[in-house]
């Protein structure tokens, strides 16, 4: 996983609430057994006018020019501005994979669905929750100023606007450290293998039926 420290990124707005993971990456693309290559199909049904299928070359597909991400001013965006309950629905990690593959490293919204929020951290994406009024203001700024950028400073837990305003944000300490260091969760957990073993011994004595093998 790529570490996340300070990002100076172009902002793109997605002005809809309850954006679900089916919309982020439709089901037909979940047939891939890779972690990469989902970027061209991000928001496929909103982004293109035709029906997308896995393996399709997207360079000549007809674009829905009304969809924000297709506007020239948002090309190369790394910060996605979103609305309430972003990432609801299916647990598919293909959703953060697609956002990352497209180029997004940070998503700002008033609220996120739990599983999606968690999946972001596993993939070097920083999801930031800000109050609805602040998010509203960022939407207005991004619309009014072409090339609107934000500096997202994870160590300082601060977003800095072009006007010099600093917006503080909360993030879980453990998740923050993992993102900054680009740490592998499994490696961290395996440091506690003695504790896991001790738990298993104790539990096996208490509730042996939990250890009945599926064979």
């Amino acid at each position: 996983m790529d570490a996340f420290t300070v990002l100076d990124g172009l902002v793109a707005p997605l002005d809809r609430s309850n954006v679900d993971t089916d919309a982020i990456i439709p089901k037909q693309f979940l047939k891939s057994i890779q972690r990469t290559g989902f970027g061209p199909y991000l928001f496929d049904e909103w982004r293109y006018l035709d029906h997308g299928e896995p393996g399709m070359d997207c360079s000549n597909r007809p674009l829905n020019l009304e969809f924000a991400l297709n506007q020239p001013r948002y090309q190369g965006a790394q910060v996605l501005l979103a609305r309430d309950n972003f990432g609801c629905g299916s647990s598919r990690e293909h959703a953060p994979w697609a956002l990352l593959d497209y180029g997004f490293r940070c998503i700002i919204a008033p609220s996120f669905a739990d599983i999606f929020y968690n999946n972001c951290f596993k993939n070097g994406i920083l999801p930031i929750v800000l109050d609805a009024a602040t998010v509203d203001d960022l939407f207005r700024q991004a619309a009014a100023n072409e090339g609107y950028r934000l500096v997202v400073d994870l160590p300082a837990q601060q977003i800095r606007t072009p006007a010099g305003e600093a917006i503080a944000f909360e993030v879980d300490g453990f998740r923050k450290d993992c993102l900054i260091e680009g740490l592998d969760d499994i490696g961290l957990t395996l440091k506690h293998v003695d504790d896991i073993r001790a738990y298993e011994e104790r539990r096996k004595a208490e509730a042996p039926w939990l250890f009945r093998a599926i064979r």
Partner: protein
Amino acid sequence: MGGKTLYDKLWDAHVVRTEADGTTLLYIDRQLVHEVTSPQAFDGLRLAARKPRRSEANLAVPDHNVPTLARAEGILEPFSREQVKALDRNCQEFHITEFGMNDQRQGIVHVIGPEQGATLPGMTVVCGDSHTSTHGALGALAFGIGTSEVEHVLATQCLIQKKSKNMLISVDGKVGPGVTAKDIVLAIIGEIGTAGGTGYAIEFGGEAIHDLSVEGRMTVCNMSIEAGARAGMVSVDQTTIDYVKGRPFAPSEDQWDKAVVAWRELVSDADAVFDRVVRIDAAGIQPQVSWGTSPEMVAPVGERVPDPDQVADPVKAAGMRRALEYMGLEAGTPIGEIRLDKIFIGSCTNSRIEDLRAAAAQVQGHKVADNIKLAMVVPGSGLVKLQAEAEGLDKVFLDAGFEWREPGCSMCLAMNADRLEPGERCASTSNRNFEGRQGQGGRTHLVSPAMAAAAAVAGHFVDIREL
């Protein structure tokens, strides 16, 4: 100091260690694996030269991609075929038991877990699928995870978690006739909204919940995620214990009594404190039909499609207008006048034997209406299918003009060949009515199995209480 909730008890029993900030290493008893969210996890193990910590704690099954017709011919679509093959290969390499596509026990992962006794009261259960909350019906802590976490569980048998808050949704009193578990959960989501449960583990309680069979409780817990909660659960009672008894992976004879004693503790203490309590009057719940593109957009069958102009919140009104446009519906249309093209009875929400019985009871002696292009029943597992055939339900459906298919996720998410075409309108017993969920441009109305079956006969929605 108050008592413990069911969730507190399940959580505490699985803590391996907790850091000062509350970050917890939580032990996972059972992982269910399917073909869509696991290949990258197995790749991760290979890349790091890791092995599953307890391969025998996992059970795998292909369900999302499998065809529901002509299964003997294998999977024709190359991407789907490759994904199912990858699961077969990975299970073989890592010594994980898999019910392959042609195994009689194959089915939807959330149907076969309880059916096999592979998921039990008191367990922590995970799967790379958001509807894992289904297993909470047994008094288990069950929740969906992403692929990175699937890999983490394979490698460590643990997850790094923070505890959620406690919510009690108590459905008090008794539901009226014709009101099913599906109507209860749709009404709950309509009440608290699709983000109402975000950050919470929900316990469903009250008389109407404990009156349900375990299968009905599964339907309710299944849709916890549609209310925003990763986990939903129901405390253990005699109904739970009777359900588990005799299943293939249930506790062996010599451990059974000890297990039952432990399971009896899996109830919230009388003085347990919940962060939020929602009370719903069961008698007020009517058969539900979703009219929009979010599971909270539901209405009782006797009412009309709501009018966004009557809604004060501009963001909500805009969402409603967009949904009505996608659904091709006018505000004010009576729900009973919505005509349908397809009927789908299946999915991890509603494909168990009781669901099929309830649907068959509506269909018996009738024919599918002329305007219905396709009405299909997709049993949740091979064993559900066999049971239904032993009861003659397949005949009831076939005689009426339904198709009787092989088990799998099918048109709930349309990863296989079963899907809606643009503009087609479907009464579906599944769990999500998102744009494009059942096929690009498809229009989904979520209902109970009895309501879907009655709609197949009438060609439009009908109130099953008036039949």
